[in-house]
């Protein structure tokens, strides 16, 4: 199968750019981006900053708090790529991160009650 067999807009053909090209080959981000880690844009990009189009997509999608999983799904790039890009944005102060609580053994009773109440109210 060669690329020429597909139309550029054929979604089933998969990404035309190798996913980690967007990150300049970097495949690792800091470990604290879970799939449900929420992020929100802290500011608009400065004109003198250089961002990849994918960085700018994230800032656009993160006008309201949004999870890593949602960003990956909406941008149609693997979650691992999103994590690296988020790392870049956070390093420049363009993004605020709320890491998910990662305790499994001792679920916080207050949170559990809030979840139950929220579900009942749906």
């Amino acid at each position: 199968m060669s690329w020429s067999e597909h139309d550029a807009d054929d979604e089933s053909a998969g990404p035309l750019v190798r996913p980690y090209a967007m990150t300049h080959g970097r495949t690792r981000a800091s470990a604290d981006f879970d799939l449900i880690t929420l992020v929100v844009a802290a500011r608009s990009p400065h004109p003198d900053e250089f961002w990849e189009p994918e960085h700018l997509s994230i800032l656009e999608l993160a006008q309201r708090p949004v999870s890593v999983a949602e960003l990956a799904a909406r941008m149609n790039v693997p979650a691992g790529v999103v994590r690296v890009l988020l790392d870049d944005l956070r390093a420049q102060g363009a993004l605020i991160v709320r890491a998910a609580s990662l305790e499994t053994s001792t679920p916080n009773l207050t949170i559990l009650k809030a979840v139950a109440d929220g579900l009942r109210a749906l």
Partner: protein
Amino acid sequence: MAYAHSDRPVRGTSAVATMPMAVKILIAGGFGAGKTTMVASVSEIEPLRTEELITAESVGVDDLSGVEGKNTTTVALDFGRITLTDNLILYLFGTPGQDRFWFVWDELATGALGAVVLADTRRLDDSFPSVDYFEKRGIPFVVAVNCFDGAKQYDPADIRIALDLDDDVLVLLCDARDRASTKEILISFVEDLIRKAQR
């Protein structure tokens, strides 16, 4: 919401204070048990699909040539979202195939409140690997028996015996297509967690 104006700088501490919290519950079970159906029945958005690109440890950070080679594969994860309050978002993640990708399960399970294991009475055996996974790791779960059209109604007690479940594991009947039914399952699960946490 405070984030409505993108051109207004948001100060770190105040933004973090108003940032919602996210929690997740996994929806597990065998192939065709109705995982994505259950997610879709209660999600406020069309279920989304995210892909995790699994890269072998040996692939160096500069080795672009290997990134899509035989050392990598992708795992698709379907998930939905329920905004419970302004400050609390619940994500439901369907787990990927039970035959492989256990390390993706590990990542999904980290920080999860627990799991709903969907059981299909026509293929009850299919839910064994999920039950086994959560039991071994001490991750709380309930078994939700998906009552498909025409499927014979089962007694939860029989399911408990068939799956060799501990007495404290809830077994409930549900219709994964039905929003109210899925909601009931999730509420029962969380209420069970609260009861056990208060013991």
